[in-house]
């Protein structure tokens, strides 16, 4: 339907059942973690809290957000919900919203619930939250750094989620094709799928995701600060106070660990995935024909990582791990840079977190 970011909602038919199943299994521990965390932390209160936040996510996905220049789009609101509730609970709330969209509105395939929840309800909130906490650096709730953290967190979070979706698409023609070579599911190789998904997201959908998170944080700073304190308080006030910086880092690690988990499954290969499954290799495998335009794009995209001499390593799985590490490092560096940038811009009054 028209009322959601159709881009990210993978329909049935795009992924092979095996891919869907693997992604579904990958989401399970996060659902478990969310539900268990819920039971431990705010117990029975959570039933209505989750329900209302899931309903809220659903509604926010319908907001039509204009970007400067006239483009409009929708946010997933995963970053926002993670900032307010913490990522563990956000996983559950966004998953429920996505599942209702899939079953009731046909937005996203029913067999792809695992895939869509993995991209939008796991990757997006954890990455966004890690970056938000990192940039917020424990500053007061009304600090401008929190607005920036929400914006950057949303932007990077959804971009990474789009990247995951692209990889999921991109590995389809490698493994599944009909007798005559026609791809059975998503038809495009990684070299096409990744730029085709990631670039528009970086320019539009991710901007909207970050924008919505930042706008709402800005509003809440002025009008409703207790809401912004929630994610930091119920996480166990004692725990958070005892280890302010440690818990901040912990979130970053959770985000990064997700990235790494996916690596061995070949679900992730930042920057160089198509370097490995390069057009020539794919052509050799008789799978793919890359038009000239796409080949040019491929070179452009691969350029920044040209020094990263993957073929020399000659080992596929090692290549995957390495490229994942590169991606992880990239995210970490970007987040760190932002932290530095705003740490110097912001006077250090009221460092303490309440």
């Amino acid at each position, binding site marked *: 339907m028209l009322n959601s970011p159709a881009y990210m909602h993978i*329909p049935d038919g795009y992924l092979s059942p095996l891919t869907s199943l693997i992604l579904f299994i990958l989401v399970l521990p996060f659902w478990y973690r969310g539900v268990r965390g819920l039971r431990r932390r705010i117990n029975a209160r959570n039933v209505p*809290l989750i329900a209302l936040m899931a*309903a809220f996510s659903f509604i926010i996905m319908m907001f039509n957000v204009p970007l400067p220049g006239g483009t409009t789009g929708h946010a997933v609101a995963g970053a926002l919900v993670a900032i307010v509730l913490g990522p563990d609970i956000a996983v559950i709330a966004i998953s429920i919203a996505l599942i209702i969209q*899939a079953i009731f*509105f046909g937005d996203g395939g*029913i067999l792809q619930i695992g895939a869509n929840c993995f991209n939008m309800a796991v990757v997006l909130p954890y990455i966004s939250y890690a970056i938000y906490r990192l940039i917020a650096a424990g500053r007061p709730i009304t600090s401008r750094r929190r607005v920036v953290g929400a914006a950057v967190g949303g932007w990077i979070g959804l971009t990474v989620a789009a990247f995951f979706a692209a990889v999921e698409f991109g590995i389809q023609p490698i493994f599944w094709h009909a007798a005559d070579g*026609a791809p059975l599911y998503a038809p495009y190789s990684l070299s096409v799928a990744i730029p085709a998904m990631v670039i528009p997201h970086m320019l539009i959908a991710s901007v909207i995701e970050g924008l919505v998170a930042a*706008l709402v944080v800005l509003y809440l700073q002025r009008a409703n600060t207790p809401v912004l304190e929630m994610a930091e308080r119920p996480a166990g006030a004692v725990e958070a106070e005892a280890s302010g910086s440690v818990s901040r880092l912990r979130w970053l690690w959770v985000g990064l660990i997700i990235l790494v988990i996916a690596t061995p499954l070949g679900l992730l290969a930042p920057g160089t995935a198509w370097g490995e499954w390069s057009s020539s290799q794919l052509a050799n495998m008789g799978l793919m024909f890359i*038009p000239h335009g796409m080949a040019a794009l491929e070179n452009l995209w691969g350029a920044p990582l040209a020094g990263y001499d993957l073929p020399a390593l000659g080992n596929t799985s090692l290549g995957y791990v390495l490229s994942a590490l590169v991606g992880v490092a990239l995210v970490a560096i970007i987040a760190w840079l932002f932290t530095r940038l705003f740490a110097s811009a912001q006077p250090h009054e009221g460092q303490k977190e309440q």
Partner: protein
Amino acid sequence: MTSRAEPALPQPASVRRRNGMVERTLAGISQAMEHALFAEETARRAGLLQALDPRVKVLAMLALLIAVALSRSLAVIAGLYAVTLALAWASAIPLGFFIKRVWLFLPFFTGVIALPALFITPGPPLAQLPLGLAITRAGATTALFLLLRVSTSVSLAALLIFTTPWNDVLKALGVLRVPDAVILIFGMTYRYIYLLLRTANDMFLSRKSRVVGRLSGAEERRMIGASAGVLLGKSLHLSSEVYLAMQSRGYRSHSHTPSVATFVMRRRDWAALFIAALIAAAAIVLGR
């Protein structure tokens, strides 16, 4: 929607402004509400699928979805699509609407992806087009796979929703071993989606009525921040009030909410389940 709301006002055709974010969001909201209302209405009609146990429908839908996903034969998927059409017809769902709903929505995602696949998938050319483009046989196959798989899957999901009250769908999820607490949360989410939809709708309508002319992009963005923030505050407040309301009626953190489903499998339900399993199995075998 907008034009219907203000028929008496003169509106110079040349100054038809691009719809703002408020109008688009309102349109999206009313679309969602209409969809829900329509589904509720068709689910009440007398028809083949409406008469079946929801659990059978959920299981049958999943089996057929998997068959569609696994099939490597276009003919088999086309056959399953024909089955969904027959079922829609037998369930008093207007066929034209049913087909249109699926195929109008396809281009937004699938068309964009399937179309280039026609040309760039390698293989012997099927038809030569201007600009040196050629549709390849493999390209056509790929595009057809995508289109048929997506439309058949969407049709299967739509069949469930158009013939089963949402509440029964939720209860039926119990057969998939979805825990009762989760079903409780789903029911509550769905119920409050409507409340928040209405709240958002009123919020935007009142905003619209107060604004003369068009908002600038920056103003619209500020408004989104405020509306979403208000909605968030309201949702959170509501959640703690609802918690009190549940507590007041005896709900405890460790209390179990027994599923209230009272479905009874009748002979025709078993028959339907059997037939669905048979079709799915046949499709999987034939489509290998």
